[in-house]
């Protein structure tokens, strides 16, 4: 935890500092929410709906300032589209760790949320991507319609707009909780 992260916390305590942090919040969150670059990370069925169809002509991610990136280093948002197997789980974690802060995750479809149709009688599927990485928004569906995933993105934008710079100091380590 660096000094820079603590600055907003102290800034908030001095008189008039609150005004600065809130306007800083507004500017930062507005820019973050309106340029969510997402990682091209599709594994199964949801990749067609969530990444290809939604990125193509009819529904168009670009309208929300969302552009796909092939590299996790340039991405802010990871749309986990599809089943995550045990073999893939480690790689998902690596990909998530490679993304630069601030980073957000949308779990798209039943499989990414909790294993979906592969919850029972299955020996190789990870039952929920939130067992390995923290998830911000869950979009149910199998697969969800492009509108649903767009709505999930809008929900995420709302979440981002509520963030505070003073929360930076609270960098939590993610501990997956056993279900």
């Amino acid at each position, binding site marked *: 935890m660096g000094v820079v992260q603590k600055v907003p916390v102290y800034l908030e305590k001095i008189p008039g500092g609150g005004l600065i942090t809130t306007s800083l919040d507004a500017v930062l969150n507005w820019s973050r929410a309106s340029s969510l670059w997402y990682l091209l990370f599709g594994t199964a069925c949801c990749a067609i709906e969530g990444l290809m169809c939604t990125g*193509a002509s009819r529904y168009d991610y670009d309208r929300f300032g969302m552009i796909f990136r092939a590299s996790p280093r340039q991405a802010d948002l990871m749309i986990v589209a599809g089943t995550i197997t045990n073999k893939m789980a480690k790689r998902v974690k690596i990909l998530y760790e490679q993304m630069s802060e601030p980073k957000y995750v949308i779990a798209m479809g039943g499989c990414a949320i909790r294993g979906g149709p*592969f919850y029972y009688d299955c020996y190789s599927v990870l039952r929920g991507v939130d067992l390995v990485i923290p998830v911000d928004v869950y979009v149910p569906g199998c697969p969800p319609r492009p509108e649903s995933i767009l709505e999930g993105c809008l929900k995420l934008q709302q979440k981002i707009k509520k963030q505070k710079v003073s929360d930076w100091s609270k960098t939590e380590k993610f501990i997956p909780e056993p279900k």
Partner: protein
Amino acid sequence: MMVDSPDRPEPLTGDRNLETEEFVVNMGPQHPSTHGVCRLILTMDGEVIKKVVPDIGFLHRSIEKIAENRTYHQFMIYTDRIDYVSSMNANHAWCVAVEKLAGIEVPERAEYLRVIMAELNRIASHLVFLASFAIDLGAVTPFLYAFRERERIVDLFEMTCGQRLTYNYMRIGGVSKDVPKDFVSETKKFCSYLYPRVDEYEAILTENPIFLGRTKGIGLLDLPTAINYSVSGPPLRGSGLKWDIRKDEPYSAYEKFDFDIPTGENGDTWDRYKVRIEEMRQSARIVEQALEGLPEGGIKAKVPARFRPPQGEAFARIEAPRGEMAYFIVSDGSTKPYRVKIRTASFCNLQALPVMARGWKIADIVAIFGSLDIILPEVDR
């Protein structure tokens, strides 16, 4: 490996006195051009590929194990997820196999509806191929065009069965729902809309010098190798064999329709692309014929909810967009299958990738991989 093509280019060309060292490049599992989660371990000599080892299993969802614990009706929803780009064909394969096993007669209208749906889905699948193949090679425009047309097919499907991707439309002994009123006219409209669109893709891509440079003569697959590797579908036809299960072992109502089997000559990347483009036109032709002759009547044979096929085994294969899709079912007379072996086209086609990619540049592997049109859940199941 026993089979080795003699006319494959040598990996190293020119006079080289410098000592070089091979190195390994890891491609995937998350890579935009692997269309999912496939890892390719490339052994390189400079820019030239010496060896490709595909590492699969990142999407192994144990569908064969699930099949042993679901009834024949319930397993239908998993067939959707084996090949999600052409769910209708995957459904169709399962239905054909189970109907063969139990000896169920399907009403003619249902067979026609199945053919219409399967062919529309073939077009949709080839459009996804075109979109991803073009974007892999750096052309973004066909991606937008192809998905524009695909949305119309998806609308037709949603109108009929309610879903956009995992249709779950067919049932053992027929189809789940009859088509809505304006389906026939809408589909006819779509077919006549499609032909000029396919010409448009061809105008953008087929003879484009950049596209030709990236695809013509790249990734050769000769016919004996293709057969020995059990390659099927457009890669096999691209290698020059006039073989299509729809024509040669007709199932459903395919023997009633008139269509051509496009074939390639050299078995290169461009031929595989061209075969798919031509197949779109032929599929549209089949759809038009099926709509013309769509008979009246029932859409579902009587199949009990607790469906118990007789003891026995069945092997049925169909021509899915990516090639041959087969189910081997063993029944012990209960409501659940004893064993289901799913043979998918991509599994075998991907196996032939090392032969095709050896000796080409690293940039070509994107084109070769794209031309195989691999769907990873089909590989791993």
